[in-house]
């Protein structure tokens, strides 16, 4: 996983609520068996509209997505996170996230930052008015600064540590291999299992 410590960049305002992962990356692009190359298909349908904010030249190269509540709802497809990351986003700022999407972000190293609704309204308005504004997202200090905002955000210490260090979950879990072995020994034999094919 890619580590995240501090990132400064310009932001794209996507002022919509309940943005589902079908919009972030439509199903027709999930047939790839690679983990990369999803960026060109990010928000594929909405990008057909020349007025869509990601088509606005003033936001080219922006690395922070500023958006509405319940971002990433629907399908569990991690491809949505890969597409955002592949496009160049490093952090998503929103009032709330869907659980699976948020979880997927923290496995990949794309930082999901929850900020209060009034702060988000202020950010959306500021970066809509001035695309050149830079925002700093500091995971070390758990703070978002810039575009007229200076606000702390919550992130549990364990997830924060994993992100700061760029640690892979499997490696962390395998530290508990003995506990997994012991758990398996104690499982009742009647639980369902399949013969090896």
């Amino acid at each position, binding site marked *: 996983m890619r580590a995240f410590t501090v990132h400064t960049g310009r932001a794209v305002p996507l002022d919509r609520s309940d943005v589902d992962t079908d919009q972030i990356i439509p199903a027709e692009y999930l*047939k790839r068996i690679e983990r990369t190359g999803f960026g060109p298909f990010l928000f594929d349908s909405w990008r057909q509209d020349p007025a869509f904010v990601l088509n606005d030249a003033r936001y080219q190269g922006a690395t922070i997505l500023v958006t509405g509540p319940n971002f990433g709802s629907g399908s569990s497809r*991690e*491809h949505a996170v890969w597409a955002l990351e592949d496009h160049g986003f490093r952090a998503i700022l929103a009032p709330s996230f869907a659980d699976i999407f948020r979880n997927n972000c923290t496995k990949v190293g794309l930082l999901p930052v929850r900020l209060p609704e009034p702060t988000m309204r202020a950010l959306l308005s500021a970066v809509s008015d001035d695309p050149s504004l830079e925002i700093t997202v500091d995971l070390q200090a758990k703070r978002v600064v810039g575009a007229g905002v200076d606000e702390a955000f919550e992130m549990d210490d364990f997830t924060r540590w994993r992100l700061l260090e760029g640690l892979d979950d499997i490696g962390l879990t395998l530290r508990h291999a003995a506990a997994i072995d012991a758990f398996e020994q104690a499982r009742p034999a009647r639980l369902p299992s399949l013969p090896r094919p």
Partner: protein
Amino acid sequence: MTAEPRTLAEKVWERHVVHRAEGEPDLLYVDLHLVHEVTSPQAFDGLRLEGRPVRRPDLTVATMDHNVPTAPGAQDPVSVRQMEAMARNAEEFGVTLFPTGHIGQGIVHVIGPQMGLTQPGLVIACGDSHTSTHGAFGALAFGIGTSEVEHVLATQTLPQRRPGTMAITVEGDLPAGVSAKDVILAIIARIGTDGGVGHVLEYRGSAIRSLSMEGRMTVCNMSIEAGARAGVIAPDDTTFAWLEGRPNAPTGADWEAALLDWRSLPTDEGATFDREVMIDAATLRPHVSWGTNPGQTVSIDDVVPEPADEAAERALVYMDLRPGTAIRDIRPDTVFIGSCTNSRITDLREAAEILRVRTVVPGLRAMVVPGSMLVKAQAEEEGLDQVFTAAGFEWRDAGCSMCLGMNPDQLAPGERSASTSNRNFEGRQGKGGRTHLVSPVVAAATAVAGHFATPEDLG
């Protein structure tokens, strides 16, 4: 000493904790891992890269469902490549696979229960958000992303933060014509698409207890459409009767031991939930979604509502609907009966019942896609395929099909569907397609009437 009263979800959670430490997520053991072709190839690649095996191939089952063709014809080479990758990975890592052409193939959330692998008290994971379906048996079932799929393959565990608990009690008798699908659509309309975020929903009350296992699966299936981490229903005699005799269900003394254990799972008297919602079953009606998320849903007797916010305004533009239009005046071009929400044998029976001696209105495309090849075979044994085809429906092979349009079963731009699936997101069933979510009964009646209708409307 009397133990503190606990909820069903808490009991299942607690018995799966492999490792717990202050400030860390609990490490939960996964009893059953369901795998499909779309969210697994990168996970298997990850294993290969690190030289890791699948820890428990005997607790892992794979199928092909998302982009399988449901009719003969030329296949998309990119889909074929993904299905070949699934077959290769299953072979290399020793995982049981039910590929296309196999009688065991079907939608992952249909075949797990059908094989008797889905049992009360288990923790189940799958790289698909509708994994919540398995909660109908009193299992705790989580939809996960591909990184987590790799994690489960490698370790048979899943680090999870303890969720909140939320009770949704539906009390009373469901009126005639109101099905499980209407119950869950009404719940989502009530609590919203983020109403369950961070929580496991427990569906309770006499109306829930009265549902068949298929109906309970429909309800739990759409827990994710309310944003929930999972959905559960207490196992009871309906659950046990459905499971008994299935291929992987316990037998003999094991069955008796299992029953004893399963009967201890339901939420204890006096246990408290973080949140509670009450719904009066008698007030429920058949539901139809009008917008672009499952919360944008009304009763079939209603009209398209005035938009309450910008999201609703956008939805109305996308759906090409005007506020005040009666739902019954909306005319779909396509009717789709299928998906992990509504493709089981009882769904097909209920729809077929309405289509006996009736036909699909001319010009309307109608298709039935059974949830598994075994459901298909059973339906054919009962002659349901004859009923559907005589009425003018296409009768297809099993798969996810038009629920998400990864295979050729798609809506054309601007086309409108009545669909028994779970998501009415923009473009979900095909770019520019407009989806209205309904029950199988309403789907069948709508196909006959040519506009949204209940069976009673057909006279």
